[in-house]
């Protein structure tokens, strides 16, 4: 194995571009996935049974079939119905819809972890259902859903490689193309692996930082610094 070659690959525009595409796919799929997941998770708690049924079918269908099929379907079958999307857009939509189904389950478990008493107390104060969700349930659920969301995020980094099936030039396809020209598989895969590890590391660091921020005890130190700062401001204010 040649380390020089790995290094060359790492700094090559092709690999860098592939990594960018992978990152872009992951982040957009994640953002839309969380939004979709939240909607579905809330629908699962709806009192109107057909809505619950809809949510269940969504989760069943999109978790149940491979993303690969979903990508191929959106890219190759939808045009038959007059909907013609670019490869990248097809990929993003497929990944987001798929991610949404997984996120829905994660968020559902997080919402369930917040005790009923906490909701009741918020209701007693006159908050609406939406207010209870926003100010009480979600903040408390957040800390619990963060690790599995981190899983999804890092998993999506790898799952996004499946979009090579519609020739979107993401990282792994670049590596495979490079390797198939000269059979330097280990070098090409190592270079891609290093990129994946680097991106995962960034995501994990982000997750760890968010977890610390959402821990009320730890965020107090920060708050006190902020308050400390505020305390300084009036001495400047000379009204």
């Amino acid at each position, binding site marked *: 194995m040649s380390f020089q070659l790995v290094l060359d690959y790492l700094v090559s525009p092709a690999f860098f571009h592939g990594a960018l595409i992978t990152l872009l796919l992951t982040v957009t799929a994640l953002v839309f996935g969380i939004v979709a997941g939240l909607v579905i998770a809330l629908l699962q708690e709806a009192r109107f049974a057909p809505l619950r049924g809809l949510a269940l079918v969504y989760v069943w269908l999109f978790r149940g079939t491979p993303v690969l099929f979903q990508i191929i379907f959106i890219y*190759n079958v939808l045009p038959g119905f007059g909907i013609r999307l670019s490869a990248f857009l097809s990929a993003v939509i497929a990944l987001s819809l798929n991610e949404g189904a997984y996120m829905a389950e994660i968020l559902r478990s997080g919402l369930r972890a917040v005790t009923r008493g906490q909701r009741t107390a918020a209701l007693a104060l006159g908050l609406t259902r939406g207010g209870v969700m926003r100010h009480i349930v979600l903040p408390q659920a957040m800390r619990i859903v963060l690790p599995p969301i981190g899983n999804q995020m890092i998993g999506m980094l790898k799952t996004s490689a499946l979009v090579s099936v*519609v*020739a979107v030039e993401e990282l792994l396809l670049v590596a495979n*193309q490079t*390797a198939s*020209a000269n*059979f330097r*598989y280990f070098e090409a895969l190592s270079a891609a692996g290093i990129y994946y590890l680097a991106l995962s590391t960034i995501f994990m660091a982000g997750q760890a930082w968010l977890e610390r921020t959402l821990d009320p005890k730890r965020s107090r130190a920060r708050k006190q610094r902020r308050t400390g700062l505020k305390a300084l401001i009036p001495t400047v204010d000379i009204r």
Partner: protein
Amino acid sequence: AELPKAGLVEAGTLTYGVAATFAPFEFQRDGKLTGFDIDFIDAIARKLSAKTAPMNMEFKGLIPALQGGRLDIINSAMYMNPQRAEQVDFVPYMKIGNVVVVQAGNPAKITGRDESLCGKTVAVTLGGIQESQARADDKACRDKKLSPVQVKTYPTAQDSWLTLRQGRADAIFDSTPGAAKVLEEVPNTFQVVGSEFEANTSIGIATRKGDAALQAALKAAIAEVVADGTYATLLTKWKLPASVTLF
């Protein structure tokens, strides 16, 4: 000919890797491996008094498995080129050309592997030699200040063909036998345009770098297979034209 005594995955057996998604060379029918390469290696093994043990995997797993000592050879219609020859040793056994295929009716008005490709989208399959050919065409177009060729690389041949069928690509580069097989299986959908090109690209059986004993054994056995007419019979069986022969 005789099989080397040592250095094999399993003594007395040719353990070969194959990515069986490339008709008519290797594919599956009713759950069984079949195709020219499969018959060919069986004929070679008979000459070597060896058994065969196929390992059917994805194309991208073949080289690591050979280098990791999991396989003795790769028998998967691998195209030879100088860069690849730095990684493995090849025993060539056929030369095949390539063709440009478009949708039936030629909606994109492509006339062959020429300037009519500039500005068009070309699908190729990962692992084939056609990707480098298409990229060369892209460069040629750019050099002539024409619109570039969009080269799309798909993981398997089926993905590439599907793309052409759905009109996502304007043309596809594939091996002449591969294209012939598709046109036979899926009639009235595609058509070949222009003439065959790079008709002397060789495909070969790959061995680990420096595995001279096995190389010698394979070469000797292939000579025997050619000599007794089996090679020619197999070409006919799989509807390959006589022009592909190296012998």
